[in-house]
């Protein structure tokens, strides 16, 4: 039985299932923790803080639903509690993967059917229908759950009228089974290797049957044709029913004519606009007729769908107006859903973790759509790039002096723009309590620093970062600190703003920048507490751009603590040893003992060693015993395994490519990661850093370097009690560490030396293979 009564939500559901563009649900991602310092796709979780007005630093890469929220606050139309709840429910659905997944079950129909005796088992009801051919594939939700529950209600009414065991009821159920058989359509038979035929249709009731039975059957036949995709036939049949004054289905039939036309218009390989125009006419006729029916809400929703297809620009305009007015929670969520859906269908989905920029080009929306409302124009411009977009944003700001447009113009402005001076003047007038304060000053500081006014930029950023009473989401704080670090005048200042707490630690398995425990995190009122670390840019600067003299200052700074300090101290110590600077290594040894007590026995030997070669062997032995020691610091959460243990994901004994200047040190997540030397470095320090990097790069892959050193030492110092263990560990490193085409030869050398010179040692017994 097709829908007897329709709630307004059904049309939205129809929108959902017909138009839904799924998130680019990528299958790939690591399950190792990953630190995100500045969220790019959406504000920090819990989103309730953003939705309630803590909008922080707004990114153009945010999905448009967040930009709508930001716009409301920026233009002085904050969301009230009810609206906040509506928006949050939509965002939660989207971020929790729940959007578009309704638990569709024919349970209500099957339960009602069970009550009728002597009608056998029901046929399987699959609500979706797949349309497939040699050159085509698609599916759609053919039978709505409401249709099944309405069938259940009708059955109960017929039982009341005709009796539970009556033939009329049995015949009605048999016919209804034939209706629902068409939900899924013919299946493919594997055994016979052919598609089954379309199931049979209900037959007209006998001429002598009760009038209600005849009317029901006519309706069932039309419904079956509707579900079978025989739309012309179904349209004629519903039209006939609409004209039948004796049919109980007379009232709903005109609505079903419209639904039939909508399906005809949208389910073919190409959009059939003429069918949609007819549907629009039919629905408008129903809505303006003198006798309103209970199906009018459903008609309005269906008309929305039709207009969605026929006139997306107008719909965008209407929805943007609706979004700026007061609405109930449900209505706002519904409007925002539809609004962003039209955007996504028109210009693509910016919720991707890897925006290409192409989606943000101006003109992605039609000119008429873009100019149809300030909200749409602002989002379109804010997400754009280039001179045209800037000029448009500037012109809009000049004519409106509105905060959203100031932010758009500042975001798009380059220091070379002659107009940027005017924007900076305006920025200085924005008060700290303004919703746009952080975004304004993020971009204003950028412009100031790029145009030679670094002192003013520093002063302003320091003032903002020192203001503890200002609500500042972690992503905003980190972005501002990163900007301040770029303005550092010395290494201490650089470090002061480079030690940051990630906005999020996550496996980020789908690239959506969400916590793994989203269900818990979304309920929290506080942002997650994370340990401090270095972001990718800081890591690159530390690893590639600073000389040992400054690295030593960092390693001994009291701005570092915990895991980060240990990582930095070990990295600088190893680097000093590898490039032959025993002075720095010696000076840092006490610090290394302090942060890594298990290394103390090794470091004592290092300190006792007198010759350079002896010191190097002591260091090599220690590095071999600690697969996580390396001459560079780790980004974000650091190495996933303690320093002394083998990491299951091959993060043991460094690779040549990960050394400064190596290919792996420059890329992460497919993005270019190159940084300039910090401005505070002197020419001499730059040269020193370059020279040290060259020497480090020449060391190459750790297992090869370490094995060479051990084999050389073992050959000369056969009596050294550390040698058997060192040889065994060198072989182990060639298995679990990075390797290249020369590794096997070195592994074999160490292995053979171990078994030749120390056959009875436990290390030889433990070392059964070379690699």
């Amino acid at each position, binding site marked *: 039985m097709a829908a007897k009564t329709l709630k307004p939500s059904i049309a939205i559901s129809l929108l959902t299932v017909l138009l839904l563009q799924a998130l680019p*649900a990528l299958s790939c991602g690591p399950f190792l923790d990953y630190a995100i310092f500045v969220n790019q796709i959406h504000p920090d979780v819990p989103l309730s803080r953003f939705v309630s007005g803590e909008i922080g630093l707004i990114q153009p890469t945010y999905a448009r639903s967040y930009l709508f929220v930001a716009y409301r606050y920026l233009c002085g139309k904050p969301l009230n509690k009810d609206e906040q709840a509506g928006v949050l429910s939509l965002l939660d659905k989207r971020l929790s993967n729940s959007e578009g997944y309704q638990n569709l079950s024919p349970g209500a129909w099957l339960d009602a059917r069970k009550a009728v005796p002597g009608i056998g088992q029901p046929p399987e009801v699959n609500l979706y229908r797949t349309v497939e051919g040699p050159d085509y594939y698609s599916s759609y939700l053919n039978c709505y759950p409401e249709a099944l529950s309405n069938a259940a209600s009708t059955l109960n009414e017929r039982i009341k009228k005709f009796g539970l065991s009556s033939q009329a009821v049995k015949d009605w159920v048999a016919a209804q089974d034939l209706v629902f058989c068409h939900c899924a359509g013919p299946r493919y038979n594997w055994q016979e290797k052919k598609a089954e035929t379309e199931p049979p249709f209900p037959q007209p009731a006998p001429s002598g049957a009760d009038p209600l039975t005849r009317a029901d059957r006519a309706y069932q036949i039309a419904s079956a044709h509707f579900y079978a995709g025989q739309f012309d036939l179904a349209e004629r049949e519903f039209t006939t029913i609409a004209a039948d004054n004796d049919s109980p289905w007379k009232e709903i039939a005109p609505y079903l004519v419209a639904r039939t036309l909508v399906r005809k218009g949208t389910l073919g390989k190409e959009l059939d606009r003429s069918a949609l125009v007819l549907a629009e006419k039919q629905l408008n006729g129903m809505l303006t007729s003198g006798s309103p029916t209970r199906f009018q809400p459903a008609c309005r929703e269906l008309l929305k769908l039709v207009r969605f297809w026929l006139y997306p620009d107008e719909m965008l305009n209407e929805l943007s107006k609706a979004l700026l007015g007061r609405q109930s929670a449900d209505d706002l969520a519904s409007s925002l859903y539809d609004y962003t859906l039209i955007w996504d269908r028109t210009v*693509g989905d910016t919720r*991707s973790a890897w925006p290409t920029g192409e*989606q943000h080009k101006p003109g992605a929306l039609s000119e008429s759509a873009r100019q149809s409302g300030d909200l749409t124009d602002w989002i379109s411009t804010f997400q754009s790039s280039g001179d045209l977009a800037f000029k448009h944003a500037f012109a809009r700001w000049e004519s409106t002096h509105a905060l959203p447009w100031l932010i758009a113009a500042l975001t798009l402005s380059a220091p070379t723009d002659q107009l940027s001076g005017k924007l900076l003047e305006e920025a200085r007038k924005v008060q700290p309590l303004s919703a746009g304060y952080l975004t304004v000053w993020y971009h204003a500081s950028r412009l100031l620093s790029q145009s030679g006014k670094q002192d003013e930029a520093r002063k302003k950023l320091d003032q903002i970062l020192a203001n503890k009473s200002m609500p500042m989401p972690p992503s905003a704080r980190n972005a501002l600190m990163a900007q301040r670090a770029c303005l550092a005048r010395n290494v201490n200042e650089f470090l002061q703003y480079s030690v940051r707490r990630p906005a999020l630690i996550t496996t980020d398995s789908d690239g959506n920048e969400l916590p793994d425990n989203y269900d818990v995190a979304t309920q929290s009122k506080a942002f997650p507490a994370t340990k401090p670390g270095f972001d990718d840019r800081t890591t690159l600067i530390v690893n590639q751009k600073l000389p040992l003299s400054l690295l030593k200052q960092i390693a001994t700074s009291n701005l570092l603590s915990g895991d980060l300090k240990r990582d930095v101290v070990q990295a600088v110590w190893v680097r000093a040893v590898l490039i032959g600077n025993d002075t720095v290594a010696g000076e840092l040894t006490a610090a290394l003992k302090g942060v890594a007590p298990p290394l103390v026995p090794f470091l004592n030997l290092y300190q006792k060693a007198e010759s350079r070669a002896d010191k190097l062997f002591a260091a090599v032995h220690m590095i071999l015993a600690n697969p996580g020691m390396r001459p560079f610091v780790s980004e974000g959460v650091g190495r996933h395994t303690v320093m002394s243990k083998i990491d299951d994901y091959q993060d043991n004994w460094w690779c040549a490519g990960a050394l400064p200047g190596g290919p792996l040190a420059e890329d992460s997540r497919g993005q270019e990661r190159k940084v300039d030397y910090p401005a505070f470095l002197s020419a001499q320090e730059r040269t020193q850093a370059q020279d040290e990097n060259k020497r480090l790069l020449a060391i190459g892959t750790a297992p090869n370097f370490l094995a060479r050193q051990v084999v050389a030492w073992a050959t000369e110092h056969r009596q050294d009690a550390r040698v058997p263990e060192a040889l065994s560990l060198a072989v182990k490193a060639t298995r679990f560490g990075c390797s290249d085409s020369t590794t*096997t030869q070195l592994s074999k050398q160490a292995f053979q030396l171990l078994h030749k010179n120390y056959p009875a040692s436990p290390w030889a017994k433990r070392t059964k293979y070379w690699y």
Partner: protein
Amino acid sequence: MIHQTRRFYIPAFLAILLVCALSALWKAPELRPPLSTDKLAGCPGIVLWAWERPEDLQYLDPNRAGVAFLACTVHMRGVDVIPRPRLQPLKLPPAAYRIAVVRIESDRLSPPALSSRQLKAVSRAIIEVARSPFVRAVQVDFDAKQGERKFYRALLYDIHRQLPPAVGLSLTALASWCTGDCWLAGLPVDEVVPMLFRMGADREHVLVQLQSGRGFAPTPGLVAVGVATDEPETGEALASSSTGILDRIRRIYVFSPKRWSAEAVTATLAEVQQWQQRL
């Protein structure tokens, strides 16, 4: 490569033989007939992923590339399993080699119970997409966390038991599953497709593997890799790998973060073929 001195060689070899024999006997009841025939033999060396958005690939030369299209997304929420078939149209040339992809997702607000009932429901949804005269293989795609692996292993065995013999079973995999974390061993699949894109923190490790020539750990039927159009450096790393890592790779799947266009397809095919010629 593991090496050994001669004196350890013979006993170790015999021990390995014994372990292999016992292992084969032990696992025999779990497996369907041996995966001796390549069920994806007719599949071209390049396959384009067509994700859930309207895609028109009618211009594709079916001899040059196949199409792996997202046919269904199965959402697991609490104790429920909610399959949602592809709701966006896909147009493709009639002769195109067609692989139906089923993606399995877990709800973040109500994590799945991973019950046996759920397993059966997910399995049923996957088998359903194979019920087509045009689908030559089914590809299963999921992000299994540590605690979900047992469920997914059982699921793959269940799917394998029910699939018609002629339909291939392909499995996408995180690259890390095929480098250090080899939990896929022994699974009854015809193909494993390590995804060499969107690798996040794993990226460095995986590229190291590729560049150092270590390659992938043995996985069942490993003959393919997945790359993305916006991460060309991964393909370059594959092509420039120093040792024989690519010798076993017969097929490259390509993901596009945007809707495919004729120009993008032409450029992609040319680039991938260039890599393949360097193998």
